[in-house]
């Protein structure tokens, strides 16, 4: 790392240490919390020193850089340091104690993080609590440490910091007559930083509001519930803000309501009913700690949150969804989850296609009436029907009368043939062979624990042998009427084991077209064809496949024309450690992660500059079916946090856990193709519609012209101007270097 990177690293780690107190990584929040801490000069200074010292120590001792940058080590130290700075006068001995405190807290943090992460729970403020109590118990022996009373008088510090103006401002704010509940709320927030004034609390509250509306509303809900509970049981109201315990309700609410779980009305309800439990924990722990003259601080919060997270692991219903990819924002977590569920809830890593050519009808789906039951329920039977929904001609007395009899059956995905049964004669129509239930069958292994089986084939018709590798779409055999098959049909199932008799595994079919009654069709992704549905496979178009084929190592250069100005924009194609490909724009530091599986190109996420060409490209090609289908529209939803902003979005944030009424609807239309066999030019048009309560508010339109096996022209039609990007010839130099 060079100097600049070092500075960046420590700035990040210190800022995150502050923001993490409130489960965030927002820089505004961090700055406001730091400012708030400096209302008491000593506390602010020693807190900052602790954050920096701990992060330096952690780096020197060689702990995980990523964790340091996240601020997870600094967070507890700075709280300990503030607690100590409040209690003792600053002198040489204090500096020694301070340093030991940082080291102890760091070790406790590393140890607890290591241990608790195995249980899948966070360490929260446990290192802080342990270190603080240990030091408070220990230093009673050290006479040289003098108790400090000066810090009670905040105005001395303010004067030192900002002269009379600041003191007057402080006085003015304090003179505002706030309702008791708000006053107590701000004081409780301030108490997290060992402060006892509402200015600190206000600064923190503003920081939370900027960082997250949901977190802010949760802090209020948590606090007010606690307040009302105390009022209801007739407990001592004042202790709420004089003895550092009110924040337990605030922090617990933020953690349970929206940080560790996806915020929904259920998490809000949960935190409301947990309030009495927190109150009891406070009371109980106070009683235990009283003889040792130790404050309870945030112990109840740590206990309840860790307990809830751990306990919910044992819930068999997924009412409270743990956040798996933490984005340090309840909004982002919620929108990303909501979007993920809508887009990818069925998506599987491995794609299974259809085992036939042309249009077939599902005669028995999953959980079917006839034979798809019990362990074998997740199977499909396919037949061919005519306009009268008949499966045969000429009376149907012979197998040959059935439309599907003798048709080729193809591999639904590539893989190795692991089992073949090829000696069962065809049944007469209406007859079933229960002895050889599956009849002539083939099992293909696609990957570990993923097999498909096709049954009721014709004896002697196999084109492949056990051990052969078959490509998707290759004919493996022809359909017969063997086994438990009263009339010819394909039995198709996905299974986890390599045997002909294995039970089924519920696994969606990756992509297919569903025919509707009016002769049109609908594009289906990762779904389960239902009984009675007529489906057929997807054909992709060479030009579209090539245009969206980005090879890691390749760079794409566009000449962008905007307002008469021309500039060059370059994207690099990379993959990350999980082999996920992304486009990277070095100039703007933007990333767009995409998936291209040969049938569909789609983006999963974007990070970076929202005025960059890459961002528009992310929106414009959010989901592209790589086959030209004039009659259909491709639709999808872009998650709110990636393209929505402004006041409307802020208002939406507040009620997002209960209702999401804003949406960003993506749509792709196939506009033009120069010839359908091997096209040389294709034009696509895509839209991004901002809708509120289903009403269109704003529309972005994009044009993509594909030529010469690449995206030739990319046009962004904004309200007042059009940006035109033309791709220059693709460079493969870097690809060759990598090879």
């Amino acid at each position: 790392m060079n100097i600049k990177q070092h500075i960046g690293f420590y700035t990040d780690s210190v800022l995150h240490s502050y923001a993490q107190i409130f489960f965030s990584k927002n820089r505004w929040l961090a700055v406001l919390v730091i400012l708030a801490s400096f209302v008491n000069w000593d506390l602010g200074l020693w807190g900052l020193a602790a954050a920096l010292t701990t992060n330096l120590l952690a780096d020197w001792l060689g702990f995980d850089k990523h964790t340091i940058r996240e601020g997870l080590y600094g967070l507890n130290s700075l709280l300990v340091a503030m607690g100590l700075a409040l209690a003792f006068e600053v002198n040489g001995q204090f500096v020694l104690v301070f340093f030991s405190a940082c080291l102890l807290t760091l070790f406790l943090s590393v140890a607890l993080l290591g241990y608790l992460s195995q249980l899948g729970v966070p360490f929260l403020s446990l290192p802080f609590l342990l270190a603080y109590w240990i030091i408070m118990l220990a230093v009673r022996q050290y006479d040289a440490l003098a108790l400090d009373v000066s810090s009670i008088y905040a105005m001395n510090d303010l004067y030192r910091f900002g002269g009379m103006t600041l003191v007057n401002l402080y006085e003015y704010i304090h003179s505002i007559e706030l309702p008791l509940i708000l006053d107590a709320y701000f004081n409780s927030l301030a108490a997290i930083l060992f402060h006892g004034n509402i200015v600190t609390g206000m600064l923190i509250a503003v920081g939370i509001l900027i960082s997250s509306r949901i977190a802010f509303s949760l802090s209020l809900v948590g606090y007010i519930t606690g307040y009302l509970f105390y009022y209801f049981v007739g407990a001592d109201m004042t202790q709420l803000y004089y003895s550092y315990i009110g924040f337990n309700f605030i922090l617990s609410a933020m953690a349970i309501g929206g940080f560790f779980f996806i915020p929904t009305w259920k998490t809000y309800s949960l935190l409301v009913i947990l309030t009495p439990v927190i109150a009891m924990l406070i009371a109980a722990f106070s009683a235990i700690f009283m003889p040792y003259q130790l404050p309870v601080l945030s112990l109840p919060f740590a206990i309840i949150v860790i307990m809830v997270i751990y306990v919910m692991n044992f819930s068999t219903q997924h009412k409270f969804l743990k956040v798996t990819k933490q984005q340090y924002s309840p909004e982002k977590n919620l929108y990303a989850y909501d979007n993920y569920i809508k887009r990818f809830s069925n998506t599987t890593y491995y794609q299974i296609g259809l085992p036939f050519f042309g249009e077939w009808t599902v005669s028995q789906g999953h959980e079917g009436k006839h034979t798809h039951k019990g362990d074998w329920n997740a199977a499909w039977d396919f037949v061919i029907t005519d306009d009268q929904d008949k499966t045969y001609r000429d009376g149907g007395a012979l197998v040959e009368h059935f439309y599907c009899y003798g048709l080729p059956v193809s591999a639904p995905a590539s893989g190795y043939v692991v089992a073949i049964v090829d000696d069962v004669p065809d049944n007469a129509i209406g007859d079933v062979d229960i002895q050889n239930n599956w009849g002539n069958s083939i099992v293909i292994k696609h990957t570990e624990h993923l097999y498909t089986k096709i049954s009721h084939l014709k004896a002697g018709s196999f084109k492949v042998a056990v051990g052969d590798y078959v490509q998707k779409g290759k004919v493996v055999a022809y359909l017969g009427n063997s086994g438990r098959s009263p009339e010819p049909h394909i039995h198709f199932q996905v299974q986890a084991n390599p045997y002909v008799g294995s039970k089924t595994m519920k696994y969606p079919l990756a992509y297919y077209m569903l025919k509707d009654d009016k002769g049109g069709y609908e594009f289906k992704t990762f779904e389960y064809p239902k009984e009675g549905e007529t489906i057929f496979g997807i054909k992709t178009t060479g030009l579209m496949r090539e245009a969206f084929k980005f090879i890691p190592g390749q760079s794409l250069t566009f000449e962008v024309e905007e307002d008469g100005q021309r500039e060059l924009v370059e994207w690099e194609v990379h993959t990350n450690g999980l082999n996920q490909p992304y486009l990277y724009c070095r100039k703007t530091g933007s990333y767009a992660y995409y998936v291209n599986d040969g049938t569909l190109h789609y983006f999963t996420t974007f990070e970076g500059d929202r005025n960059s060409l890459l961002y528009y490209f992310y929106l414009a090609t959010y989901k592209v079916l790589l086959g030209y289908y004039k009659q259909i529209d491709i639709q999808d939803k872009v998650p709110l946090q990636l393209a929505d902003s402004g006041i409307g979005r802020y208002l939406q944030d507040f009620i997002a856990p209960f209702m999401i009424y804003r949406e960003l609807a993506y749509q792709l239309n196939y506009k033009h193709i120069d010839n359908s066999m091997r096209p040389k030019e294709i034009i696509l048009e895509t839209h991004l519609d901002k809708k509120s309560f289903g009403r269109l508010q704003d529309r972005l339109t994009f044009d993509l012209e594909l030529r010469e096996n690449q995206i030739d022209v990319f046009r962004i039609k904004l309200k007042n101007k059009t940006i035109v990007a033309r791709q220059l010839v693709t460079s493969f130099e870097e690809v060759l270097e990598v090879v």
Partner: protein
Amino acid sequence: MTKLRYERPVIKALNTGVTNKFGAQQGFIPHTHIDGVAVKDLIAEHGSPLFVISEKTLRDTYRKAKSAFSTRYPNVQFAWSYKTNYMNAVCNVFHQEGSWGEVVSRFEYEKALRNGVPGDKIIFNGPDKTTDDHRVAIANGSPIHIDHLDELYSLIELSDEMDKRPRVAIRINMDTGIQPMWDRFGFNYENGQAWDAINKIMHSKKLDLIGLHCHIGTYMLAAQAYGVAASKMADLALNIKKKFGHSIHYLDLGGGFASKNTLKGAYLSGSDVAPTFADYAEHISTALLNAGFEPDELPLLILETGRAMVDDAGYLLGSVLANKRLSDGRRATILDFGVNLMFTSFWYEHTISPAQECSQYAEDAVLYGPLCMNIDVIRENVKLPPLNKGDQVVVHRVGAYNMTQWMQFIALRPRIVMVDLDSKVHLVRDSEDLDYMMHLERVPEHLKSFEL
């Protein structure tokens, strides 16, 4: 009670059983309705004779053919052969079902364009293409199927002149084991002409060779022959790939599938011996799938089947003009339509049914048309119940070629109607009248008047 119909008595040999060596008995069952519309109502409304096309049969047949091929091969496209029946209503039914167009003259080409078929979906076949025809087809991006070397040279010249790359295929003729072997169209596979043409195209670098085309014959009763043709075509395509690294986009196996009509002199009736679409599809797709193409490089299979697609959907209704006895004692019935409207009666023994109630007692008869020409014979020998003057008959399976090869000879051509899926009758071509015929005629001034 209505008066019972009179039918004069006949004497004939007893004929027992359902089928004898002459095939199934036919012609006894009256055919009173077409898709729910009464024949007598049709004739009352539109006159006699009258062509009737069943939209339902058109669509059913297309879907059967499509299903037969697309369930066996992943990449199938039909192209409607205009010459078989280019009534716009018929063409558009097929276009609605997804068919492209296949034309063999500028007239048909313009007709397809006017029907709204995009240029790149009109296959331009046949030996009759002028330089101007080529120019239009190149401008529209239509696939041009080259029939002879002169056409090939002409296209190379045009590509320079127009600075465009024509999209071409070459027509191949080959020995598929059937007689007669069609070798008058295209380039021969066995003697190397085909490779000669391919080399010329590839080395010219002026033309895009996108396809290969063959059309091995017509009314083909041997589906195996298509398997042989498909293998040879695939062999060419794979070797072009090997030699030039160029992949062929499509293989056009042409048409020629037999309809259920019975050929003259055939021992068994057409419905008993004609292969089904499934039979043809089986041979073609098996040959292509086993030829050795990579699954994602399988060429598009284009089929131009006309006759088998449209024959069943066409009916000709007519009326009895008179009965008479020939010198040898055979019975003769004169109908109001003849070879002028039924060109196919030169090839087929068309099934003809009475359109009203009749007994099952049939008598041998000769069916004559109304033309005052000796050749005007509809059936030389048919078993039909005795018909009276004014009785109506239905001729089956006349959808292919009759509405394009009919003659305005002696009589004017009648109406064509189409019965839609809801049994509604639509006029799709009006009958000709004197004005229509005179419209194109010019009489020199000195011949305009005469006195008798």
